[in-house]
C-alpha cells in the first residue's frame, strides 16, 4: 500500500507515462510518443507538430477528392434552460462533387431536411412538412457555408469537411494539440488526436494508411458549464455514383414553396 503510493507519486513527479500509456506505447510509434510524453504538461500552447501535420495531411487528402459520399451518425447533447442535458441522435448524409455540387440530408427523430446545391441555387426541403425554399447560392461549395449561415441562419451539415485543407482550416486557432494514440473505429485502424481552441475542445480519429479520412469526431463545447458534446461517426465512400440529377431539386407533388426569413442582407 505504502509502496504503491510512493511509486505513483514518483511517476507523477517524473512525468512518466502512467500504465495506460506504457501499454499503448508498445504498439504505437515509439519515438513520437516518447517525445510527447517528455513534454509532460498538456497546457494551452502545447502543440505537438505531428498532430497538426496529421490534420493537414487529412485536409490535403480530403481536398484531393473530387467526389465524396459520407454517412454520419451523430449524437448531440442539447442543454435545456434548466441545465439538463438531453442527447439527440441523428444521421446525416452528404454527397459532393467539387467544386459546385452538393446534396445533404439530415435525419433525426424530430427533423428531416434535404439540401440541394447545383452551383447556382440552394434548396432546403422538408419532406415531412412539404415546404421548400430556394435561394441564390455562390458558385463554389467552399463559400456556400458562409452565405447560408450569414444570410439565412442555415448551418450546412459537415461544413468542416470543406474547410480542412484550405487556408481557412482553422489550424491557427489551435492552442493545444496532442496525439492520444492508436484506436480502432468500426474495424478501421485510426490515430486519435485531441485539440484545444478557444471555447472548444475537440478530438478526431484519423484513419491510418493511404486514406487519412476522419472517422470520428467529438466536439466539446466549453462555454456551457455542463460541456455538451457532439459526436460524429463517419462512413466514407470515395467512389460514389453521382448523377447530375442527384444535385437537382425537383419539387415532389404537393410540395409548397416558401421563403426564408433572412437574418441579414
Amino acid at each position, binding site marked *: 500500500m505504502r509502496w504503491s503510493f510512493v511509486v505513483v507519486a514518483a511517476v507523477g513527479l517524473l512525468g512518466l507515462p502512467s500504465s495506460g500509456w506504457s501499454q499503448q506505447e508498445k504498439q504505437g510509434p515509439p519515438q513520437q510518443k516518447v517525445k510527447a510524453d517528455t513534454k509532460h504538461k498538456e497546457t494551452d500552447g502545447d502543440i505537438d507538430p505531428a498532430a497538426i501535420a496529421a490534420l493537414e495531411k487529412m485536409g490535403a487528402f480530403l481536398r484531393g477528392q473530387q467526389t465524396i459520399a459520407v454517412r454520419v451518425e451523430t449524437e448531440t447533447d442539447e442543454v435545456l434552460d434548466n441545465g439538463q442535458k438531453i442527447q439527440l441522435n441523428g444521421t446525416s448524409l452528404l454527397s459532393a462533387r467539387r467544386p459546385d455540387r452538393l446534396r445533404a440530408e439530415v435525419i433525426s427523430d424530430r427533423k428531416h431536411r434535404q439540401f440541394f446545391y447545383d452551383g447556382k441555387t440552394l434548396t432546403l426541403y422538408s419532406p415531412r412538412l412539404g415546404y421548400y425554399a430556394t435561394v441564390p447560392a455562390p458558385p463554389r461549395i467552399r463559400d456556400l457555408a458562409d452565405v447560408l449561415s450569414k444570410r439565412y441562419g442555415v448551418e450546412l451539415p459537415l461544413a468542416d469537411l470543406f474547410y480542412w485543407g484550405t487556408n481557412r482550416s482553422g489550424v491557427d486557432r489551435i492552442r493545444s494539440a496532442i496525439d492520444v494514440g492508436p484506436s480502432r473505429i468500426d474495424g478501421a485502424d485510426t490515430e486519435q488526436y485531441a485539440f484545444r481552441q478557444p471555447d472548444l475542445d475537440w478530438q478526431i480519429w484519423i484513419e491510418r494508411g493511404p486514406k487519412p479520412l476522419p472517422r470520428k469526431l467529438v466536439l466539446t463545447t466549453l462555454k456551457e458549464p455542463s460541456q455538451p458534446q457532439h459526436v460524429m461517426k463517419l462512413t466514407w465512400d470515395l467512389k460514389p455514383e453521382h448523377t447530375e440529377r442527384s444535385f437537382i431539386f425537383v419539387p415532389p407533388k404537393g410540395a409548397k*414553396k416558401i421563403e426564408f426569413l433572412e*437574418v*441579414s442582407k
Partner: protein
Amino acid sequence: MKWASIFGVLMLLAGNADARYVRNTTRTSINRDVDVNRNVNRNVNVDRNVNRNVSYHRDIDVDVDYHHYHPVARAAAVTATAAVTAAAIGSVVNSLPPSCTTVEQVGVTYQRCGSTWYQPRYVGTQVSYVVVTPP
C-alpha cells in the same frame, strides 16, 4: 368547475415550462463558431405565448416536423393566451395552434388558424410562422 380551473392552471404551467427550451449552445462544427442567438436576435422577434419577447431558441418542443408526440398542454396554453392577446402582425411563432387550414393564394402558402393568418417561413432550417395580414 373547480377541477377545470385547476386543470387550466396546470396546463398553463406546463405551457410555460422553460425547461423544454434548449439553449442551442452546443457546437457542431470546429471551424464555424455559430451563435444562432446572436444572429437571429437582431431581426427576429419571437413573440412567445406569454407576451414577452425571448431570444430565438431552437426548441425541443417545436424543432420538429410533427407535434403529435409532444405534450398537448403547451399548444393548449398557446391557444388560451392567443385568445386574450391578438397575435401581432409580423410576430413569429415556432408552432401553430391546432386546427389550422392550409390556404394557397396566388402561389403563396398560408396557414389560417381561426382569424389569424400565418405564412410559413424557414428561420434557419426550422419552419416558423409569421403572422400576416389576411390576404
